[in-house]
């Protein structure tokens, strides 16, 4: 690549999302997670370990804060000072929010984390130099760094266990950053099939591993460009717009009776994950 080429085409490379002049063309992958359905059971998180070759680090490293769970289930207590948590706990599945204007991307010196044309924050393990700047700048702290060489660490993947590894996903080596990819290998497979058949990926054709496992169907995933997809309908019904940092409905007097929201929208990250508020019965 010549410098002239670089200069001429730079504007294309640095084209960020969301923008009005260049909307997503075929796909914009997005999620909706219903917190009223989510029971905090952790099945999604285990599914992510199984699908994405995530190492189990053991107690000592977990204690050092070096756990690798791409999907973590956070448990919050109501802060009302009551004697008992008599409205239960609140669970929140948290993984990379696939921000449209991802602060992790701009700071990466190597360009190892990028926005794909499908609106997903990709992570290129081979390209990563391990500066961890991306993690430093991620507001949700959902990036996980390979502090050790897990493939060769005792009792992470003993020989027998390596046979479980998913060959569609690389096993990361020491010194690289990783995080939820929206199960990119599944999207790619579905896209290839669709392309061979001369069509677009159909709604429901690709499921993320977490969505697939979730016993309460709390997670839905799909293509926001396709207005007929479940996710697009959910976003539309909840009046959450991808490229807004303040949703029109929130500006309404007296709030809204819709449940959709995105976390820390005010940071203008334009996350691709919409959550639906947990609900608690007022009559009891």
């Amino acid at each position: 690549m010549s410098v002239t080429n670089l200069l001429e085409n730079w504007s294309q490379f640095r084209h960020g999302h969301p923008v009005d002049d260049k909307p997503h063309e075929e796909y914009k992958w997005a999620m909706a997670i219903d917190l009223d359905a989510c029971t905090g059971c952790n099945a999604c998180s285990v599914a992510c370990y199984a699908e994405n070759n995530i190492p189990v680090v053991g107690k000592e490293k977990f204690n050092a804060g070096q756990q690798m769970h791409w999907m973590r289930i956070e448990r919050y207590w109501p802060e009302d000072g009551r004697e008992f948590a008599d409205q239960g706990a609140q669970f929140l599945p948290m993984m990379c929010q696939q921000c449209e204007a991802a602060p992790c991307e701009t700071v990466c010196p190597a360009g190892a984390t990028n926005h794909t044309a499908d609106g997903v924050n990709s992570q290129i393990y081979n390209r990563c130099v391990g500066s961890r700047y991306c993690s430093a700048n991620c507001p949700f702290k959902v990036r996980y760094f390979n502090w050790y060489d897990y493939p060769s660490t005792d009792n992470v993947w003993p020989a027998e266990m390596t046979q479980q590894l998913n060959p569609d996903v690389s096993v990361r080596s020491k010194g690289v950053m990783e995080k939820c990819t929206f199960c990119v290998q599944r999207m790619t497979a579905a896209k290839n099939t669709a392309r061979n058949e001369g069509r677009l990926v159909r709604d429901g054709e690709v499921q993320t591993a977490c969505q697939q496992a979730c016993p309460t169907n709390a997670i839905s995933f799909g293509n926001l460009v396709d207005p007929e997809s479940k996710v697009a309908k959910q976003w539309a019904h909840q009046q959450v717009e991808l490229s807004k940092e303040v949703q029109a409905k929130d500006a309404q007097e007296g709030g809204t009776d819709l449940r959709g929201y995105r976390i820390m929208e005010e940071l203008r990250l334009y996350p691709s994950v919409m959550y639906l508020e947990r609900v608690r019965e007022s009559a009891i």
Partner: protein
Amino acid sequence: MIENGFNRRDFLKVLGWGGAVVALSGCGNTSVQDGAEIVTSYVEPPEYALPGIGVYFNSTCAQCDAGCSITGRVREGRVLKLEGNASSAINRGKLCGLGQAGVQAHYNPDRVREPLLRNGDKGEAITWDKALGLINEKLNGVKGDEIAFLTGAVSGHVKVLLKNYLEALGSKNHYAYDAVAPSVVRAANKKAYGVEMPRLRLDKAQVVVSFGADFLGAWVSPVHFSQEYAQFRKGSDGARGVLVQIESKMTLTGANADRWIAIRPGTEGILALGVINALDAAGLSLPADVAAVSKAYNAERVSKDTGVSAEQISKLATLLKARTPSLVIAGGAAEGYKHGSQNAAAIALLNRVLGNIGKTIEAPANVPFPQVAVTTGNRSSVQALNDSMANGKLKVLFSYGVNPVFTAPAALKFQDNLKKVSFKVVFANYLDETALAADLVLPLDSALEDWGTAVPEYLVEAAQLNIQQPLMEKLHAGTRGTGDILLALLKQRRANEYKDYEDFYSYLRSAVVKNKSALGGAGADDDTFWGETLSEGLVKLPASNGALSAKSSAAGLVLPAPAEEDSAYPLHLIPAVTANLRDGRHANQPWLQESPDPLTTIVWDSWVELHPKTAAKLGIVEGDIVEVTSRSGSVKAQAYLFPGIHPDAVSIPLGNGHTALGRWAKGVGINAFSLLDQVVDKDTGELALNETRVKIGKTGKRVMIVKDEGAAGGSQAGKKIAVSASTDEVELSGEV
């Protein structure tokens, strides 16, 4: 624009992937001997291995007894991932974390790989011929009633063979043991509804009141209930279902309740009658027998006994009266007492009063072949076995699928009594505590390598026969399937009867195919029928629903006054059954150890849950190593302050504290079974799990608890992260 061309780059990529994978799997199948490598060519791969392409095979989850159907993703002959099989009405394509960890049970490096014969303190590897011959030899001259077979819950064709084997040995001693089974509730259901496990229609209920049934976590059929729960929450057109959970220690289900009610341990039945009384006051007409019993349970008294406010009771009654149908469930927390049966009976009355029977409590499907229906496990069986061992009556004991040395309550002294049995044969996947106490260990195929059938206890829509089939070739040449072992043992006794069956597979196939017309395969040729059965992973049995016999009656209901203070052991111990570890058999699956406990977020350890008030009284802070002492034992573990527990109770999760079972289980945490007193439910003789009283002392040591929760301790610090709204603030109708 779709680019339809498959360009060279893509081609090379695909080629590269496939190539890399063939190379990888080639490594797996390469044996290195004296430096000579034998490389297996994939020019003619096995038919199930399409290089680079994932193929799916259906089977049945063996991680718990719920019997979810699984679909294993297999590539290059290796099973990679377990997913839910959508054709099963039980789990409808979903799978819990425990179920998914099945691959780690299979690939576990600590599996037993060859038959082991005790030689002093060591196990000596022997051949299968020798092992089976030895069993035959040891059984010579032993009377039938000196032989016993201990198992967990069993069903399907393994159960048939097991039964036949015992019969051949002239023994009636089949003990089915399940340390954490809802056995008291089963008995109470039988009395109240005429069936042990009715179908609970969460999806039809508007209100669910659960007395400590952790149906979203570890109770009966959690994946199924979770799905129904989701439907119940959505309701029909925005009428969202309301969940009230009443228990002394918050379970995962409690954490999801609209109202979680902390109740004084053991007073669940009193509260149930109190609610009936309040319903009466609210104008619901009660049957005479019920009214006669409930009238003594006025709000004031019940409130005093249970610690639940009168206002709360009346609110609950109002809700139950207004929204029907509802569903009331008695679970583990209610049954774990001396009067557990009575608690469960009182709770069942509530269903009768509310008219739920027949609406949200339905008759389960009948299993047309009783010989393959499940024999559920309970706790009294291990007590009975223990007694006969203690009397020296047993000479030979077989054990399969249970680990009583780990799970039997300390007070039974099971391990000591086991020594009195002269020959103990343990069917084992790993060297767990019981296998280590055996004289002969028979190494089993993993659940993903073995053949079998299973009929779950909790059936949905119709009865189903679940197929268990190998998802890949055996990892270790020296292991055998349970059915194969039983068949071999049977052949020692009844050679003629079984001579046609070369192995368990042929037995199974012929047993299923023989009945094809009853299994919906009438007219199909054998191979097609069998092929379809395997590919489906289950057979739906012809529907024939039984009927409930609503016998729920207040007669004979006697609820004791709340337990008195025990000054020596002031606190109630509530051993917690967690979704991941259950009775501890899965503690060696690293995903489960590293998957944080949903409520405390603790990993890789045990802990002692205390209410902050109790902790403050005792001067305990988070991370203090405390000594918990019961009349039967004592353990030391880290304290965790928890707002979801009654101040009179402490809770320790079950499942950890192994002294064996492999690298990921051994030495992790403490074993709460070792604290349990031998107190039983009066009506059923079942061990009352929550009746152990304990005291707590500080040891002066403190640790940093290893957990996922950060220093903010589950506070959102005023930020809008996990947002909650009350029903009057949201409009759910019309949601997608």
